[in-house]
């Protein structure tokens, strides 16, 4: 029996805009095994961040079920949801806008402990804060610093400590390293990995960086314009990508190795479709290198083509 910490079924989020309905997330389903990491990759505007926020109901999903530890989060009221968020947390992309500039490091880290009445004694809270800071590799002397006095890497550590402060079992990492420099990225990725094994955390790892997701995740889903186009264990996806978009995405990643000949790349043409009022056809058809008549007919559904490997493409069977 597999122990799933999270199961998302038919998650959908539409935003109402002046021009029409914006399909941010369209009918997404996946499961996350306890202690594992699910990577969600895709380019800007594909809805990956909306998924992360919808799971915590920071954004109210339009429809769908989010089953966390066997309980459907969509059925909880605001208060119940608030206490449920001690089990699930989120780490944000931008280490600048994700910290309140007027709160010190210790104020930011201790806020959740106080709000949720996890620890009552002031001394114990202090102790817990310094324990958390230690855990994420922040020296104690920064406790009274303000975020603007610190660099991006340290700020991201504060964000991680804030998320850990409520002892969560599950964390959504929303592009946690995209805004950081290469050498700092590696520091943070290693920290997150280390914390995962130490605290038995389950992650959803949202990113646009294929190498990072490969390093970090067990399973992976590829998103395009709010739809899941491919889903599989990481090794399988990188060895044998099936969806034309995944193939293009993988071939587009620059590889930092010397190669005599120019690498062959799939260069996509055309423009990304507008996510508003989408017609009933494959969303990738405007840029697809394997486009044919079937693609215009209807929207492809996810099919299992190998064990655990799902693809949504008319041309893949």
């Amino acid at each position: 029996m597999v122990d799933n910490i999270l199961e998302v079924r038919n998650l959908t989020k539409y935003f109402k805009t002046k021009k029409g309905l914006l399909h941010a997330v369209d009918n997404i389903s996946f499961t996350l095994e306890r202690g594992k990491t699910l990577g969600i990759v895709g380019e800007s505007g594909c809805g990956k961040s909306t998924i992360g926020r919808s799971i915590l109901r920071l954004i109210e999903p339009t429809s769908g079920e989010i089953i966390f530890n066997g309980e459907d989060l969509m059925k909880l009221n605001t208060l119940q949801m608030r206490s449920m968020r001690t089990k699930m947390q989120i780490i944000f992309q931008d280490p600048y806008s994700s910290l309140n500039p007027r709160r010190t490091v210790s104020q930011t880290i201790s806020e959740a402990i106080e709000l949720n009445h996890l620890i009552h004694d002031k001394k114990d809270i202090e102790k817990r804060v310094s324990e958390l800071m230690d855990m994420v590799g922040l020296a104690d002397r920064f406790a009274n610093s303000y975020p603007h006095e610190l660099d991006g890497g340290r700020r991201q550590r504060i964000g991680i400590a804030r998320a850990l402060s409520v002892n969560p079992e599950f964390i959504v990492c929303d592009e946690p390293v995209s805004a950081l420099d290469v050498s700092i990225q590696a520091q943070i990725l290693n920290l997150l990995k280390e914390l995962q094994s130490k605290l038995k955390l389950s992650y959803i790892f949202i990113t646009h960086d294929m190498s990072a997701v490969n390093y970090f995740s067990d399973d992976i889903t590829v998103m395009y314009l709010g739809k899941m186009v491919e889903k599989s264990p990481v090794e399988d996806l990188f060895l044998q990508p099936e969806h034309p978009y995944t193939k293009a995405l993988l071939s587009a990643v620059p590889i930092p190795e010397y190669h005599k000949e120019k690498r062959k790349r799939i260069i996509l043409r055309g423009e990304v479709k507008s996510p508003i009022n989408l017609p009933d056809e494959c969303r990738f058809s405007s840029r697809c290198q394997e486009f044919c008549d079937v693609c215009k007919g209807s929207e492809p559904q996810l099919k299992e083509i190998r064990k655990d490997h799902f693809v949504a493409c008319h041309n893949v069977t």
Partner: protein
Amino acid sequence: MKQKKTKRRSTFSEIWRNYRKNFSGMLGLMIIVGILVTILVGNFIYDYDTDVIGQNISERKQAPSSEHLFGTDEFGRDILTRIIWGGRYSLAIGLAAVLFSSIIGVVLGSLAGYYGGVIETIIMRLADIFQAIPAIMLGICFVTAFGQSIFMLTIAVSIGAIPAVTRVTRASVMTVKDMEYVEAARAIGANNFVIIFRHVLLNAMSPVIVQATLRIGGAIVGIAALSFIGLGITAPTPEWGAMLSSARQYLRGYDYMALYPGLAIMVTVLGFNLIGDGVRDSMDPKLKK
């Protein structure tokens, strides 16, 4: 690794640190402190009934001299004394008016910005209506309708500014509301109260404070203007605008009577404008290098 010092520094002291480096801001602060001290000292050395409003026909309309530095008015009262005494009205009403309009505007603007929807529509339409009527007309009508008490004057001067404050606050709150740290606060279980006060309002206040400091000068001119057209503080109370108004009849030959009260207004307003510029420069991160 070298230990990098991290001083504990609050945002307020950070702003003050920037402000101190601002030459014109410090100049403005010096002007205003100087004026405040003069008014305070004047309060003790001049007696209202004899020195300020007491008439002295024998010394009417004397040009500036060593005895009367700014000369005397048509009732023989020393103009310098009256200017010093009159400063309290300008400053008190000016500051009170800005405080009043800021409080009302911030409350309305925050409600509109944070909650949106119907509340926002109602508040912003009301702001449209009040902004459509020219501010000075609004003040004039208000004083005519409700009387010329100090309280009503304060409201008359501030009422025209409320829509602008509301707009600025709303825009700022809307920007801050979308910041990720507000979302993070929600994610760790903060309720609306905590979010509004701890995370949104404090961070949304900079533009409001900047705007408020820049508006003090305008409020002081506002009260002087009302007095000038006879709707503000009335004789014999010495108010700068009222003094200018009565000096109008004596422009020919006694122009010094119109000179000094206006100069007092200008210097005061200049002081506050300099402070306002300084505050803006030290609070606006865009101008920081």
